[in-house]
């Protein structure tokens, strides 16, 4: 009788410890998940900033100014354009 009780006690203690450690692990994993989600949001923010930067650099007015002034480019006259039919 006493032996069974001791065994049961041991089992109960082991279960309790397992419960504690698994809930600890769950929290750790959850913190990890939270961090990754935060990173995702931060990357989203960075992406929107990069998009903004890209569209600022690729601004048509700026591109035209550089093409005209720096690279001395100009639109071809209509007579110099050859259009070909898609076969």
């Amino acid at each position, binding site marked *: 009788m006493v032996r069974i009780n001791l065994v049961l006690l041991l089992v109960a203690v082991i279960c309790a410890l397992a419960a504690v450690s698994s809930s600890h692990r769950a*929290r750790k994993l*959850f*913190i990890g998940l*939270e961090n990754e989600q935060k990173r995702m949001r931060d990357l*989203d*923010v960075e992406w*929107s*900033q990069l*998009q*903004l930067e*890209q*569209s*600022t650099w*690729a*601004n*048509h*007015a700026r591109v*035209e100014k550089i093409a005209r002034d720096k690279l001395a480019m100009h*639109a071809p*006259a*209509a*007579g*110099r*354009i*050859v*259009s*070909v*039919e*898609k*076969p």
Partner: protein
Amino acid sequence: MRLKFAHSPLLSQPLPTWRARLLLALLLLGFAALIGRSLYLQGINNDFLQKKGESRYERVIEISATRGRILDRHGDVLAVSTPVKSIWAIPEDAMLSPAQTRQLAPLLDMDVRELTRKLAAAKDFVFLKRQIPPDQADQVAALNLPGIYQQREYRRYYPAAEVTAHVIGFTGAEDAGQEGVELALNPQLAGKPGSRRVIKDRRGQIVEDVESIRKPVEGQDVNLALDAKIQYLAFSHLKQAIVDNKAKAGGIVVLDAKSGEVLALANLPTYNPNNRGKLVGAQLRNRAFTDTFEPGSTLKPFTAALALEKGDFRFNTPIQTAPGRLTIGSATISDAHAHGTLTVAQVIQKSSNIGVAKMALTFPPEDMWSMLDSMGFGHPLKLGFPGEVGGRLRPAKNWRPIEQATMSYGHGISVTLIQLARSYLAFARDGDLLPLSLTRLESQPAEGQRVFTAQTARELRAMLEMAVLPEGTAPKAQISGYRVAGKTGTAHKVEGGAYADKYVSSFVGFAPVSDPRLIVAVMIDEPSAAKHFGGDVAAPVFSKVMAGALRTLGVASDAPLKPLQMAAVPVPKDVR
């Protein structure tokens, strides 16, 4: 005498037993009350305490949702939200030393006196500076000042700035659309912030998700019909024309004739939506939608079309316009240049008021009214823009003959530029009108509301093509390589009920005539340099924008080009 303790006379006095019993009973009663209370708190009514306990470690946190982006038809960003920080303070707690104030002020781009004044305010809460970049806010946070806090907000940026200002509009401080597409499509763009309940540990880290109270809804991106490249072309050429002609204002609309999509829409004067410090009403006006003007001769083709539909006139029916004056009732109308006998086509080509008036006077007023009404004049397009107006088209029963005559050439009626551009869809297409679309359409609409027969539309295209020939009113609208068609308009402005010596010059046209793809409508308000005729002021803008846009879209040319200067280079046979 020594008094022995054991023999105290007090003790020897016998006490009544009821006193001891009473005391015992009172003590037991006290215990019972305590046990009852603890049972009540622990077992029966424990919800309240449990809630109180949870609130010590549970937190409800907001999950912010971003507003959707606005993109052009190719996916270029026209409006995007990025987070910024707002710095606020509780003045009572923010007891800063003069040194700290001096440190903080430059970080907030303020002078020390202004900051001190804000912090001295007798309020519980003051915004010190709204919407500063996150790295600047981090520097403020690093100072670790008492009573100074920050909060995350979103700020909307418009990379194309003034080029797209009127179409896109802007948002207010609470991230809600205030103007333009931002307002028109606000329900789709706006996100809904959510919230969730979590458990935080003592270090402030979230350790458990309890429940999601409201899921956040991210704002949806919107793909506009706008083509950023054509928009820029339209804007820059319009701007140039306004400078060259010393004009007060102007507007331009580019439509896709195949789908009714608005490819470009610009107004001047404009503003920079990223920096709306000193805005005046004139800059904010989305003229293409909110300002009506008397269109003048750009309305003549509709009268001619109705005349063809009725069958009394044909393409070549001669009309006597000599001697360039026509008296109707007590009023006299005249042509800018006197012509002799003109065919219907030549009336449009030379823009003869008398020729058109003579055609118009053969219609019952109701027929002319219902034609103009079916073209969309007189009622707003309802695209959701704020302040969109419908123009003025008076009911036919009040028309006097002179009014019917002047209306036939675009006076006594007022329209918006976007209405005028849309009405030309009837000629550019085979006589049907499509609803306009601000957003990109995935498939082309089949057929719109029919207003003219295909035959009439074809004949009108031929007449409008004649108008840009050297004998017409707008040879400056020509583009080499493409056949174009269009109509000029030059109208006196109405000021205080009378016609003033100021003009609105316009041009509406389409190209390529063999299979119209684009419609461009240009309006220049009060050109005050040497010229004021639509053919001199507005037609060149049309020509440049149309040429650039057709090239951008890769539309095949339909007119013989000037001799190729590079004909020596053979075109390879297997070019794809």
